[in-house]
Protein backbone atom coordinates (compact mmCIF):
# COMPACT_ATOMS: atom_id res chain seq x y z
CA UNK A 1 0.00 0.00 0.00
CA UNK A 2 2.66 2.42 1.11
CA UNK A 3 4.84 1.63 -1.88
CA UNK A 4 2.01 2.03 -4.37
CA UNK A 5 0.89 5.27 -2.81
CA UNK A 6 4.45 6.55 -2.93
CA UNK A 7 4.82 5.60 -6.60
CA UNK A 8 1.57 7.40 -7.39
CA UNK A 9 2.59 10.48 -5.43
CA UNK A 10 5.94 10.52 -7.16
CA UNK A 11 4.19 10.28 -10.51
CA UNK A 12 1.95 13.17 -9.49
CA UNK A 13 4.85 15.38 -8.55
CA UNK A 14 6.83 14.54 -11.66
CA UNK A 15 3.82 15.23 -13.82
CA UNK A 16 2.88 18.49 -12.19
CA UNK A 17 6.33 20.04 -11.92
CA UNK A 18 8.23 18.68 -14.92
CA UNK A 19 7.47 17.82 -18.52
CA UNK A 20 9.19 14.44 -18.49
CA UNK A 21 5.98 12.51 -18.92
CA UNK A 22 4.90 14.44 -21.99
CA UNK A 23 6.07 11.80 -24.53
CA UNK A 24 4.26 9.06 -22.59
CA UNK A 25 1.17 11.21 -22.58
CA UNK A 26 1.25 11.61 -26.35
CA UNK A 27 1.76 7.93 -26.82
CA UNK A 28 -1.13 7.07 -24.49
CA UNK A 29 -3.38 9.56 -26.22
CA UNK A 30 -3.13 7.48 -29.38
CA UNK A 31 -4.64 4.59 -27.45
CA UNK A 32 -7.36 6.54 -25.66
CA UNK A 33 -8.57 8.61 -28.60
CA UNK A 34 -10.49 5.73 -30.24
CA UNK A 35 -12.21 5.06 -26.92
CA UNK A 36 -13.33 8.66 -26.72
CA UNK A 37 -14.56 8.36 -30.25
CA UNK A 38 -16.51 5.29 -29.13
CA UNK A 39 -18.13 7.11 -26.20
CA UNK A 40 -19.25 9.80 -28.59
CA UNK A 41 -20.95 7.25 -30.80
CA UNK A 42 -24.41 7.40 -29.16
CA UNK A 43 -24.66 11.15 -29.81
CA UNK A 44 -23.38 10.65 -33.31
CA UNK A 45 -25.84 7.85 -34.05
CA UNK A 46 -28.69 9.96 -32.75
CA UNK A 47 -27.66 12.74 -35.05
CA UNK A 48 -27.30 10.42 -38.01
CA UNK A 49 -30.74 8.89 -37.54
CA UNK A 50 -32.17 12.39 -37.21
CA UNK A 51 -30.58 13.25 -40.51
CA UNK A 52 -31.69 10.17 -42.38
CA UNK A 53 -35.27 10.32 -41.10
CA UNK A 54 -35.96 13.75 -42.47
CA UNK A 55 -38.78 13.77 -45.00
CA UNK A 56 -38.55 15.04 -48.55
CA UNK A 57 -40.62 18.14 -47.94
CA UNK A 58 -38.56 19.16 -44.94
CA UNK A 59 -35.42 18.69 -47.01
CA UNK A 60 -36.78 20.79 -49.83
CA UNK A 61 -37.73 23.48 -47.35
CA UNK A 62 -34.29 23.45 -45.84
CA UNK A 63 -32.72 23.52 -49.27
CA UNK A 64 -34.78 26.55 -50.22
CA UNK A 65 -33.87 28.24 -46.97
CA UNK A 66 -30.16 27.55 -47.44
CA UNK A 67 -30.29 28.84 -51.01
CA UNK A 68 -31.69 32.18 -49.89
CA UNK A 69 -29.16 32.36 -47.08
CA UNK A 70 -26.36 31.64 -49.53
CA UNK A 71 -27.61 34.40 -51.83
CA UNK A 72 -27.70 36.91 -48.99
CA UNK A 73 -24.23 35.91 -47.81
CA UNK A 74 -22.83 36.08 -51.33
CA UNK A 75 -24.24 39.56 -51.66
CA UNK A 76 -22.50 40.55 -48.46
CA UNK A 77 -19.30 38.92 -49.62
CA UNK A 78 -19.20 41.22 -52.63
CA UNK A 79 -19.14 44.17 -50.32
CA UNK A 80 -16.57 42.40 -48.15
CA UNK A 81 -14.21 42.00 -51.09
CA UNK A 82 -14.40 45.68 -51.77
CA UNK A 83 -13.92 46.53 -48.10
CA UNK A 84 -10.94 44.20 -47.85
CA UNK A 85 -9.34 45.87 -50.82
CA UNK A 86 -9.98 49.26 -49.32
CA UNK A 87 -8.55 48.04 -46.02
CA UNK A 88 -5.38 46.95 -47.80
CA UNK A 89 -5.08 50.35 -49.45
CA UNK A 90 -5.57 52.20 -46.18
CA UNK A 91 -3.15 49.96 -44.36
CA UNK A 92 -0.68 50.63 -47.10
CA UNK A 93 -1.13 54.34 -46.55
CA UNK A 94 -0.60 53.86 -42.83
CA UNK A 95 2.53 51.80 -43.48
CA UNK A 96 1.08 48.87 -41.59
CA UNK A 97 3.40 45.98 -42.26
CA UNK A 98 1.25 42.95 -42.36
CA UNK A 99 -2.13 41.74 -43.28
CA UNK A 100 -3.56 38.63 -41.79
CA UNK A 101 -5.24 36.34 -44.17
CA UNK A 102 -6.86 33.45 -42.44
CA UNK A 103 -7.51 30.04 -43.85
CA UNK A 104 -9.41 27.40 -41.96
CA UNK A 105 -9.54 23.66 -41.61
CA UNK A 106 -12.85 22.05 -40.74
CA UNK A 107 -12.66 19.64 -37.84
CA UNK A 108 -15.07 17.69 -35.76
CA UNK A 109 -15.48 17.18 -32.04
CA UNK A 110 -14.70 13.62 -30.98
CA UNK A 111 -14.58 13.83 -27.21
CA UNK A 112 -15.13 16.06 -24.22
CA UNK A 113 -13.30 16.09 -20.91
CA UNK A 114 -15.07 13.84 -18.39
CA UNK A 115 -14.12 16.25 -15.64
CA UNK A 116 -16.69 19.08 -15.47
CA UNK A 117 -14.19 21.49 -13.96
CA UNK A 118 -11.85 21.09 -16.91
CA UNK A 119 -13.11 22.49 -20.19
CA UNK A 120 -11.11 20.64 -22.81
CA UNK A 121 -12.27 18.85 -25.94
CA UNK A 122 -10.73 16.43 -28.38
CA UNK A 123 -10.94 17.16 -32.09
CA UNK A 124 -10.24 14.91 -35.05
CA UNK A 125 -7.29 16.81 -36.54
CA UNK A 126 -3.71 16.45 -35.46
CA UNK A 127 -0.10 16.65 -36.49
CA UNK A 128 -0.92 14.99 -39.82
CA UNK A 129 -3.09 17.95 -40.73
CA UNK A 130 -0.54 20.52 -39.64
CA UNK A 131 -2.21 21.42 -36.37
CA UNK A 132 0.12 23.15 -33.91
CA UNK A 133 0.07 24.04 -30.24
CA UNK A 134 -1.55 27.41 -29.65
CA UNK A 135 -3.67 27.25 -32.78
CA UNK A 136 -7.03 29.04 -32.39
CA UNK A 137 -10.28 27.14 -32.82
CA UNK A 138 -13.56 28.74 -33.92
CA UNK A 139 -17.11 27.68 -34.38
CA UNK A 140 -19.57 29.42 -36.69
CA UNK A 141 -20.22 32.19 -34.18
CA UNK A 142 -16.96 32.99 -32.45
CA UNK A 143 -13.77 31.91 -30.74
CA UNK A 144 -13.87 28.55 -28.98
CA UNK A 145 -10.37 27.96 -27.65
CA UNK A 146 -6.81 27.01 -28.43
CA UNK A 147 -4.97 23.78 -29.10
CA UNK A 148 -2.86 22.68 -26.13
CA UNK A 149 -1.73 19.19 -27.11
CA UNK A 150 -1.25 17.77 -30.58
CA UNK A 151 -1.34 14.03 -31.24
CA UNK A 152 -0.86 12.33 -34.58
CA UNK A 153 -4.44 12.52 -35.78
CA UNK A 154 -6.26 14.30 -32.99
CA UNK A 155 -5.59 17.17 -30.66
CA UNK A 156 -6.73 18.56 -27.36
CA UNK A 157 -8.24 22.01 -27.16
CA UNK A 158 -8.56 24.22 -24.10
CA UNK A 159 -11.82 26.15 -24.30
CA UNK A 160 -12.05 29.84 -23.50
CA UNK A 161 -14.53 29.03 -20.73
CA UNK A 162 -11.99 27.00 -18.74
CA UNK A 163 -11.08 28.66 -15.48
CA UNK A 164 -7.40 28.64 -16.38
CA UNK A 165 -7.93 30.42 -19.69
CA UNK A 166 -7.70 34.12 -20.41
CA UNK A 167 -7.57 36.04 -23.66
CA UNK A 168 -7.04 39.69 -24.58
CA UNK A 169 -10.14 41.38 -25.98
CA UNK A 170 -11.42 44.79 -26.96
CA UNK A 171 -14.88 46.26 -27.36
CA UNK A 172 -16.13 46.89 -30.87
CA UNK A 173 -17.83 50.14 -29.87
CA UNK A 174 -14.80 52.05 -28.59
CA UNK A 175 -11.83 49.72 -28.56
CA UNK A 176 -11.44 49.49 -24.79
CA UNK A 177 -8.98 46.67 -24.08
CA UNK A 178 -9.41 44.06 -21.43
CA UNK A 179 -8.78 40.42 -20.57
CA UNK A 180 -11.62 37.90 -20.80
CA UNK A 181 -11.27 35.04 -18.36
CA UNK A 182 -13.07 31.74 -18.20
CA UNK A 183 -15.06 30.89 -15.10
CA UNK A 184 -15.48 27.17 -15.60
CA UNK A 185 -18.96 27.90 -16.91
CA UNK A 186 -19.91 27.40 -20.57
CA UNK A 187 -22.34 30.31 -20.51
CA UNK A 188 -20.22 32.98 -18.87
CA UNK A 189 -16.88 34.70 -19.07
CA UNK A 190 -15.67 37.61 -16.99
CA UNK A 191 -13.46 40.63 -17.62
CA UNK A 192 -10.45 41.06 -15.40
CA UNK A 193 -9.59 44.39 -13.73
CA UNK A 194 -12.10 46.75 -15.32
CA UNK A 195 -11.88 50.06 -13.53
CA UNK A 196 -15.16 51.80 -12.59
CA UNK A 197 -14.43 54.69 -14.93
CA UNK A 198 -14.18 52.46 -17.99
CA UNK A 199 -16.76 53.06 -20.67
CA UNK A 200 -18.39 49.67 -20.90
CA UNK A 201 -22.09 48.88 -21.18
CA UNK A 202 -24.40 45.93 -21.27
CA UNK A 203 -24.69 44.81 -24.89
CA UNK A 204 -21.15 45.74 -25.88
CA UNK A 205 -19.61 43.34 -28.37
CA UNK A 206 -16.15 42.06 -27.53
CA UNK A 207 -13.69 40.78 -30.11
CA UNK A 208 -10.22 39.38 -29.74
CA UNK A 209 -7.65 42.17 -29.74
CA UNK A 210 -4.75 40.18 -31.12
CA UNK A 211 -2.50 41.19 -28.25
CA UNK A 212 -0.68 38.27 -26.72
CA UNK A 213 0.07 36.79 -30.14
CA UNK A 214 -2.18 33.79 -29.62
CA UNK A 215 -5.48 34.74 -31.18
CA UNK A 216 -5.73 36.83 -34.33
CA UNK A 217 -7.45 40.16 -34.10
CA UNK A 218 -11.14 40.68 -34.67
CA UNK A 219 -12.87 37.39 -33.91
CA UNK A 220 -16.03 37.65 -31.79
CA UNK A 221 -15.60 36.54 -28.19
CA UNK A 222 -18.76 37.60 -26.41
CA UNK A 223 -21.39 40.16 -25.48
CA UNK A 224 -21.51 41.98 -22.16
CA UNK A 225 -24.52 40.79 -20.15
CA UNK A 226 -24.00 42.58 -16.88
CA UNK A 227 -21.84 45.33 -15.41
CA UNK A 228 -21.95 45.59 -11.63
CA UNK A 229 -20.22 47.56 -8.97
CA UNK A 230 -19.02 45.32 -6.15
CA UNK A 231 -18.51 47.16 -2.88
CA UNK A 232 -15.70 44.87 -1.76
CA UNK A 233 -13.68 45.33 -4.91
CA UNK A 234 -12.00 48.26 -6.60
CA UNK A 235 -13.03 46.92 -10.00
CA UNK A 236 -16.25 46.41 -11.86
CA UNK A 237 -17.69 42.94 -12.14
CA UNK A 238 -18.36 42.44 -15.84
CA UNK A 239 -19.90 39.25 -17.20
CA UNK A 240 -20.06 38.22 -20.84
CA UNK A 241 -21.97 35.66 -22.76
CA UNK A 242 -19.61 33.87 -25.18
CA UNK A 243 -20.46 34.23 -28.86
CA UNK A 244 -19.41 30.68 -29.66
CA UNK A 245 -21.74 27.92 -28.64
CA UNK A 246 -18.98 26.42 -26.57
CA UNK A 247 -20.86 23.47 -25.14
CA UNK A 248 -22.75 22.38 -28.24
CA UNK A 249 -20.90 23.09 -31.46
CA UNK A 250 -19.66 19.90 -33.10
CA UNK A 251 -18.24 21.22 -36.33
CA UNK A 252 -15.32 23.48 -35.67
CA UNK A 253 -12.79 25.50 -37.61
CA UNK A 254 -9.07 25.44 -36.99
CA UNK A 255 -7.54 28.74 -37.96
CA UNK A 256 -4.34 29.02 -39.93
CA UNK A 257 -3.10 32.59 -40.13
CA UNK A 258 -0.77 33.29 -42.96
CA UNK A 259 1.01 36.53 -42.51
CA UNK A 260 1.24 38.41 -45.76
CA UNK A 261 3.77 41.16 -45.78
CA UNK A 262 2.75 44.08 -47.88
CA UNK A 263 5.42 45.74 -49.92
CA UNK A 264 6.45 48.06 -47.13
CA UNK A 265 10.04 47.89 -45.98
CA UNK A 266 11.18 48.51 -42.44
CA UNK A 267 12.79 51.75 -43.50
CA UNK A 268 9.54 53.12 -44.74
CA UNK A 269 7.98 52.43 -41.38
CA UNK A 270 10.48 54.56 -39.54
Amino acid at each position, binding site marked *: *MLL*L*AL*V*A*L*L*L*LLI*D*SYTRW*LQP*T*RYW*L*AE*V*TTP*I*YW*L*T*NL*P*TRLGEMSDESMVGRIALEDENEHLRTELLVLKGRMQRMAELAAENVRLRNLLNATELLQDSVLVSELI*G*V*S*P*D*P*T*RHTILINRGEDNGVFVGQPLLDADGLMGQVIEVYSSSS*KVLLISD*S*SHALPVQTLRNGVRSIAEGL*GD*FKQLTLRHVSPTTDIKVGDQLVSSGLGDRYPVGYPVGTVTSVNRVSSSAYLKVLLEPSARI*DRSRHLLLLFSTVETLGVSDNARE
Partner: protein
Amino acid sequence: MPESNQTTYLWSVVTLLLALLLQILPLSEPLVYWRPQFVLLVVFYWLFRSPFKHGIGFAWLAGLLLDIFIGELFGRHAVVFALSAYLLQLLQQRLHHFRVIHQAVLVLILVLMSQLLLHSITLLLRTNWQGDLVVMPAVTSAIIWPLMVWLLSHLIAPQSSQNMSPNH
Protein backbone atom coordinates in the same frame (compact mmCIF):
# COMPACT_ATOMS: atom_id res chain seq x y z
CA MET B 1 -18.12 -20.98 -3.94
CA PRO B 2 -14.74 -21.07 -5.55
CA GLU B 3 -14.62 -19.36 -8.85
CA SER B 4 -11.65 -20.00 -11.01
CA ASN B 5 -9.07 -17.26 -10.85
CA GLN B 6 -9.26 -16.61 -14.53
CA THR B 7 -12.99 -15.94 -14.70
CA THR B 8 -12.81 -13.61 -11.72
CA TYR B 9 -10.01 -11.59 -13.22
CA LEU B 10 -11.66 -11.59 -16.62
CA TRP B 11 -14.89 -10.30 -15.13
CA SER B 12 -13.14 -7.69 -13.08
CA VAL B 13 -11.35 -6.38 -16.16
CA VAL B 14 -14.57 -6.36 -18.20
CA THR B 15 -16.54 -4.52 -15.51
CA LEU B 16 -13.68 -2.12 -15.01
CA LEU B 17 -13.61 -1.23 -18.69
CA LEU B 18 -17.38 -0.76 -18.74
CA ALA B 19 -17.14 1.52 -15.73
CA LEU B 20 -14.39 3.44 -17.47
CA LEU B 21 -16.60 3.96 -20.52
CA LEU B 22 -19.41 5.22 -18.28
CA GLN B 23 -16.96 7.48 -16.51
CA ILE B 24 -15.83 9.25 -19.67
CA LEU B 25 -19.16 9.19 -21.52
CA PRO B 26 -20.04 12.74 -22.53
CA LEU B 27 -22.96 14.05 -20.47
CA SER B 28 -24.85 17.29 -20.59
CA GLU B 29 -24.18 20.13 -18.19
CA PRO B 30 -26.28 19.47 -15.07
CA LEU B 31 -25.91 15.70 -15.27
CA VAL B 32 -22.16 15.67 -15.49
CA TYR B 33 -21.86 17.03 -11.96
CA TRP B 34 -23.91 14.14 -10.63
CA ARG B 35 -21.97 11.40 -12.39
CA PRO B 36 -21.22 8.62 -9.88
CA GLN B 37 -17.64 7.47 -9.49
CA PHE B 38 -18.29 4.34 -11.55
CA VAL B 39 -14.70 3.12 -11.57
CA LEU B 40 -14.29 3.46 -7.82
CA LEU B 41 -17.62 1.66 -7.29
CA VAL B 42 -16.48 -1.27 -9.41
CA VAL B 43 -13.22 -1.37 -7.47
CA PHE B 44 -15.18 -1.45 -4.21
CA TYR B 45 -17.38 -4.18 -5.58
CA TRP B 46 -14.45 -6.45 -6.35
CA LEU B 47 -12.81 -5.71 -3.04
CA PHE B 48 -16.05 -6.71 -1.31
CA ARG B 49 -16.58 -9.75 -3.40
CA SER B 50 -13.18 -11.34 -3.60
CA PRO B 51 -10.94 -9.67 -1.05
CA PHE B 52 -8.21 -12.26 -1.50
CA LYS B 53 -7.89 -11.73 -5.22
CA HIS B 54 -8.39 -8.00 -5.43
CA GLY B 55 -6.46 -5.69 -3.20
CA ILE B 56 -4.98 -2.26 -3.13
CA GLY B 57 -2.91 -3.03 -6.21
CA PHE B 58 -6.10 -3.55 -8.21
CA ALA B 59 -7.50 -0.24 -7.02
CA TRP B 60 -4.22 1.47 -7.84
CA LEU B 61 -4.19 0.05 -11.36
CA ALA B 62 -7.81 1.04 -11.92
CA GLY B 63 -6.99 4.57 -10.78
CA LEU B 64 -3.98 4.78 -13.06
CA LEU B 65 -6.07 3.56 -15.98
CA LEU B 66 -8.61 6.31 -15.31
CA ASP B 67 -5.78 8.84 -15.11
CA ILE B 68 -4.54 7.71 -18.49
CA PHE B 69 -7.98 8.17 -19.97
CA ILE B 70 -8.59 11.55 -18.43
CA GLY B 71 -5.04 12.44 -19.46
CA GLU B 72 -4.45 15.31 -17.10
CA LEU B 73 -2.37 14.58 -14.05
CA PHE B 74 -1.01 11.05 -13.86
CA GLY B 75 -1.24 9.29 -10.51
CA ARG B 76 -4.08 11.44 -9.22
CA HIS B 77 -6.80 8.81 -9.20
CA ALA B 78 -4.25 6.07 -8.52
CA VAL B 79 -3.25 7.41 -5.12
CA VAL B 80 -6.82 8.27 -4.17
CA PHE B 81 -8.20 4.86 -5.17
CA ALA B 82 -5.38 3.04 -3.39
CA LEU B 83 -6.10 4.97 -0.21
CA SER B 84 -9.86 4.33 -0.45
CA ALA B 85 -9.18 0.64 -1.01
CA TYR B 86 -6.95 0.61 2.06
CA LEU B 87 -9.71 2.12 4.16
CA LEU B 88 -12.16 -0.41 2.80
CA GLN B 89 -9.80 -3.25 3.66
CA LEU B 90 -9.53 -2.03 7.24
CA LEU B 91 -13.28 -2.50 7.53
CA GLN B 92 -13.30 -5.78 5.63
CA GLN B 93 -14.04 -8.01 8.65
CA ARG B 94 -17.15 -6.09 9.56
CA LEU B 95 -18.42 -5.58 6.07
CA HIS B 96 -20.02 -8.94 5.57
CA HIS B 97 -22.40 -8.29 8.44
CA PHE B 98 -23.57 -5.13 6.77
CA ARG B 99 -26.82 -4.89 4.88
CA VAL B 100 -26.67 -3.37 1.42
CA ILE B 101 -28.14 -0.15 2.76
CA HIS B 102 -25.37 0.09 5.34
CA GLN B 103 -22.85 -0.61 2.64
CA ALA B 104 -24.33 2.28 0.69
CA VAL B 105 -23.78 4.60 3.62
CA LEU B 106 -20.20 3.41 3.83
CA VAL B 107 -19.79 3.97 0.11
CA LEU B 108 -21.14 7.49 0.56
CA ILE B 109 -18.50 8.23 3.17
CA LEU B 110 -15.66 6.63 1.26
CA VAL B 111 -16.50 8.33 -2.03
CA LEU B 112 -16.89 11.61 -0.19
CA MET B 113 -13.41 11.22 1.28
CA SER B 114 -11.93 10.18 -2.03
CA GLN B 115 -13.51 13.15 -3.81
CA LEU B 116 -12.21 15.47 -1.13
CA LEU B 117 -8.70 14.11 -1.58
CA LEU B 118 -8.99 14.09 -5.36
CA HIS B 119 -9.98 17.74 -5.51
CA SER B 120 -7.29 18.69 -3.03
CA ILE B 121 -4.73 17.12 -5.36
CA THR B 122 -6.35 18.87 -8.30
CA LEU B 123 -5.46 22.15 -6.63
CA LEU B 124 -1.91 21.42 -7.81
CA LEU B 125 -3.21 22.11 -11.30
CA ARG B 126 -5.84 24.72 -10.80
CA THR B 127 -6.78 27.23 -8.20
CA ASN B 128 -10.53 26.99 -8.16
CA TRP B 129 -12.32 24.81 -5.68
CA GLN B 130 -15.74 23.44 -6.57
CA GLY B 131 -17.33 22.04 -3.46
CA ASP B 132 -20.36 20.71 -5.31
CA LEU B 133 -18.17 18.20 -7.03
CA VAL B 134 -17.12 16.67 -3.74
CA VAL B 135 -20.64 15.99 -2.55
CA MET B 136 -22.74 15.32 -5.64
CA PRO B 137 -20.89 12.28 -7.04
CA ALA B 138 -20.73 10.76 -3.56
CA VAL B 139 -24.50 10.96 -3.19
CA THR B 140 -25.21 9.41 -6.58
CA SER B 141 -22.56 6.75 -5.97
CA ALA B 142 -24.28 5.72 -2.75
CA ILE B 143 -27.65 5.63 -4.51
CA ILE B 144 -26.39 3.54 -7.37
CA TRP B 145 -24.41 1.12 -5.16
CA PRO B 146 -27.27 -1.29 -4.21
CA LEU B 147 -28.36 -1.35 -7.83
CA MET B 148 -24.86 -2.13 -9.01
CA VAL B 149 -24.32 -4.87 -6.44
CA TRP B 150 -27.61 -6.46 -7.39
CA LEU B 151 -26.87 -6.26 -11.09
CA LEU B 152 -23.32 -7.49 -10.94
CA SER B 153 -23.93 -10.31 -8.50
CA HIS B 154 -26.79 -11.60 -10.64
CA LEU B 155 -24.88 -11.16 -13.82
CA ILE B 156 -21.64 -12.77 -12.74
CA ALA B 157 -22.07 -16.35 -11.53
CA PRO B 158 -24.97 -15.85 -9.13
CA GLN B 159 -24.22 -18.91 -7.02
CA SER B 160 -20.95 -17.49 -5.82
CA SER B 161 -22.22 -14.16 -4.72
CA GLN B 162 -23.35 -15.23 -1.28
CA ASN B 163 -20.91 -13.03 0.52
CA MET B 164 -22.45 -10.03 -1.16
CA SER B 165 -26.01 -10.67 -0.13
CA PRO B 166 -27.25 -9.31 3.18
CA ASN B 167 -27.35 -11.36 6.40
CA HIS B 168 -24.49 -13.65 5.62
